[in-house]
């Protein structure tokens, strides 16, 4: 936790509110620190997009993005229980879809179709 907080402070100058919500940015930093520390190598990350002509991120974009994330979080809360639990495990259970299948005893096809259903519901909720 302290590692993540320290990294957030440290990389605050790289945060662009028009490209990711705060929750998402915290999520990606926490995920990367976890991998760096547990596996002792720096996780391969995509290269950054080159800077655009605008210096400051657009306020309206940033606000719209924050609202989108709140809407998405709300949609996740409204998912059927089985689907919601699977999405939470997929992100915070440290398991791949096949590992979730092995652990729960459910066939991989069931795991994949539940996740797909959950994603479809979320997409629908965001439209």
């Amino acid at each position, binding site marked *: 936790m302290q590692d993540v907080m320290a990294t957030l402070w440290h990389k605050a100058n790289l945060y662009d509110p028009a490209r990711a919500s705060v929750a998402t940015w915290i999520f990606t930093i926490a995920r990367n620190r976890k991998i760096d520390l547990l596996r002792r190598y720096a996780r*391969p990350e995509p290269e*950054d997009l080159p800077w655009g002509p605008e210096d400051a991120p657009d306020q309206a974009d940033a606000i719209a993005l924050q609202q989108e994330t709140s809407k998405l979080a709300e949609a996740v*809360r409204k998912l059927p229980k089985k689907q919601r639990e699977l999405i939470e495990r997929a992100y915070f259970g440290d398991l791949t879809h096949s590992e979730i299948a092995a652990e729960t005893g459910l066939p991989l096809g069931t795991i994949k179709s539940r996740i797909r259903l959950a994603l479809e519901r979320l997409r629908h909720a965001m439209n």
Partner: protein
Amino acid sequence: MPAIRHHVPDDLLMGYAAGVLPQAFDLVVATHVSLNDDARVRLAGYEELGGAVLSDLKEAELAPDSLEQTLAKIARMGPTARNTRTNGIFPAPLRKMVGGDAAAVKWKTIARGTKQAVLCSDGDATARLFYIPAGQAMPEHSHRGTEMTLVLQGGYSSADAHFLRGDLEVADQKTNHTPIADDDGEDCICLVATDGRLLFNGLLPRLAQVFLRI
């Protein structure tokens, strides 16, 4: 027909966003996303979902000295660097892994100008670069697990699909294919991640596999 896709499939992109893939697959996804804006947008969606799930988790109690420890960590950190774009063939995540661009790769010859270099390997998952001279074929092979192939230079054909720089092919156990590098004068360089070893079908390639660890 085996499923062949030019873009990264959702389960691998979601796995990358969640941080549960082996290093070899992380490397291929990060390199693909660097070259493909569609994959970048989709990845942002999955990270957004991670943020949404995170914001809904229960709060945890912190140790009383958390703030002091955090401040001490910040004081020890070096300057931050961006993963910036350069003019070479390799995007930043691959360049970092190799320690340079294509000229810095330590190739090992497999046969007739075909070369490989293993970049990283943890457990069953391995990432390697392949160099296939223009017009030549990779030995025919199938797989035990998943194979992701990303084109960095030149192009190749496999079954009835064609792949160029930035394109990604995902093959599974059912796929039995012989990729052939385009015969247009440009040699083909690919980044390949596999979990489970490749299974070559001919006898000579199978012998080579024993000795060359390909």
